């Protein structure tokens, strides 16, 4: 187990390194010199320019620049925003991150609470009307573009009915629409998955044994089937984080939600590359860590994996 953890950790470090170098190179390809942009945006003295160039090694070859950047990142310094004159990128991210985390956590909880029972029930009542209905719903949910669901919900609940605010983050009401949009796709995927794993668990020998012992159906499902069926579902959630974060960008843009997604999109729009680079690196690191934790948790819960 220790060996497994070590290997996985090393792999994770290599992956984050690759991600950081890729995002750095992409930003190098971006049109415009950061210093030129700085000069264009604000009054800046030659001394200040020299200081910035020294700090980020802009007068040196790109690989020196990369390691300078990486070194600064390690000390928690992601540079300063060009658009919001001189505001540290770190501050901007700390400001936006809680908004995104709240939104995503809520969506995850909502989608699990709704989708897993639906999936399990659909598998237990296989080929019933409920099964067909929920799976048709899930298939549709996967095909619906989330930003379109967002627009439709705004049309109905904000513009026509006037029940919920169409954008912004404020009272609990403002959470309902963005959470619904983010959760809808997760729900579709989780419902299909938990239906699949439940029906597989239902066909296992231990279920037959439990039934043969004379346990009631309800007990068999809750005590024997669900516990085993939910394992892959729970770990799937760890792997879904990358997708969830992608969805956040669109949803936050539609609902003008002041989170990481909107910050990212606005920064792209205004060519504020220090911010973009920092967000890309952070998101990718988050995904790597989430996958790593998921793998380890999976190995910990499921002895069959640990042995391999």
């Amino acid at each position, binding site marked *: 187990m220790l060996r497994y953890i070590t290997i996985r950790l090393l792999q994770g470090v290599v992956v984050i390194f690759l991600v950081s170098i890729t995002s750095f190179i992409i930003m190098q390809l971006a049109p415009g010199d950061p210093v030129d942009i700085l000069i264009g945006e604000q009054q800046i003295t030659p001394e200040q320019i020299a200081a910035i160039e020294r700090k980020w090694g802009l007068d040196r070859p790109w690989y020196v620049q990369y390691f300078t950047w990486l070194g600064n990142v390690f000390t928690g310094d992601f540079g300063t925003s060009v658009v919001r004159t001189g505001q540290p990128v770190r501050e901007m991210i700390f400001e936006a991150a809680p908004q995104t985390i709240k939104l995503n956590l809520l969506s995850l909880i909502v989608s699990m609470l709704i989708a897993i029972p639906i999936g399990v029930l659909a598998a237990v009542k296989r080929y019933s009307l409920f099964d067909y209905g929920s799976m048709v719903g899930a298939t549709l949910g*996967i095909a619906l573009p989330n930003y379109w669901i967002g627009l439709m919900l705004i049309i109905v609940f904000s513009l026509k009915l006037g029940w919920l605010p169409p954008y912004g983050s404020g009272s609990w009401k403002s959470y309902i629409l963005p959470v619904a949009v983010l959760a809808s796709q997760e729900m579709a995927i989780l419902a299909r998955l938990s239906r699949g794993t439940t029906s597989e668990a239902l066909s296992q020998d231990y279920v037959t044994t439990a039934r043969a012992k004379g346990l009631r159906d309800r007990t068999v499902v809750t005590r024997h089937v669900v516990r085993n069926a939910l394992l892959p579902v729970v770990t799937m959630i760890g792997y879904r984080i990358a997708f969830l974060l992608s969805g956040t960008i669109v949803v936050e843009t539609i609902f003008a939600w002041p989170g990481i997604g909107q910050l990212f999109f606005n920064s792209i729009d205004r060519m504020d590359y220090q911010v973009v680079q920092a967000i890309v690196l952070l998101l990718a690191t988050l995904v790597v860590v989430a996958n790593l934790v998921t793998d380890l948790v999976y190995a910990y819960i499921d002895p069959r994996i640990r042995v391999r």
Partner: protein
Amino acid sequence: MSIQAATEETPAQAILETGTARRSEWSRVWRRFKRYKPGLAGATLVIALIFIAIFAPLIAPYSPTEKVGRRATPPSAEFWLGLDEIGRDVLSRLIFGTRVALIVGIGAMAIALIIGVTIGAVAGYFGGTVDLALSRVIDALMAFPLLALLITLSALFEPHLRTVVIVIGVTVWASYARVVRAEVLSLRERDYVIAARAIGARSPRIIARHMLPNVIGPVIVLASLDVGSIIILESALSFLGLGVQPPTPSWGGMLSAGRSLMRNAPHIAIAPGVAITLTVLAFNLMGDGLRDALDPRQRE
């Protein structure tokens, strides 16, 4: 597993039904595919969409880029889906938009397949350091939130249909590489591969002739399921203003334009959303059907 047992036919049945015991793999795949009705419906819709895309100028009642009436006119007998924010016919734009969706969906998929299958096969076949290095590249690509990477890349280049196809193609191949790598890895020590090597076949030949044909099933399934998500990605990019540029009609762009008139003319934003959903649904259902037909192991 019981479903699979039912779809596998005994040789005797095969003789009875067709008069011959030998039956090509593809005709068996087709038979299995036909059994899953939603898959058949999806495939039919996909073919219909391809026809619509090819014959768009003949089918579309009006020009997709010219003003034909008052802006934001609601649907009527003359304009079935109404007019958009400039006064162009929504239905005609929707029909021409099929082209963009399919070109991006299929084009980007083709690029992703070529890169993914090549890298996956090389990693799986050669193993060792090559595999170690390529696998980390695959991991790194999968660690990027896809849309963030796409948005970043699209912002760097001139927005154009070609850019969108290439950018999506070079970012979504990782999952194919992963699947092909695992499959090739499992085939490496098979007897027929060892035999091919023993008679002096070179590595590219072994990969292309002996391994890839055995891998193609799961790859086709994955690809057909992914065309849908690529179409959603493209429309999301266009929606954010980074995809295909106006006046070229793209569904995501139409949605984005309809957004400002949501209150008084919701029809502009509703129509392209339905088109995207139906198209994605068609590819997904076809993919589900193909999975049952080609890759019984992966069935849910």
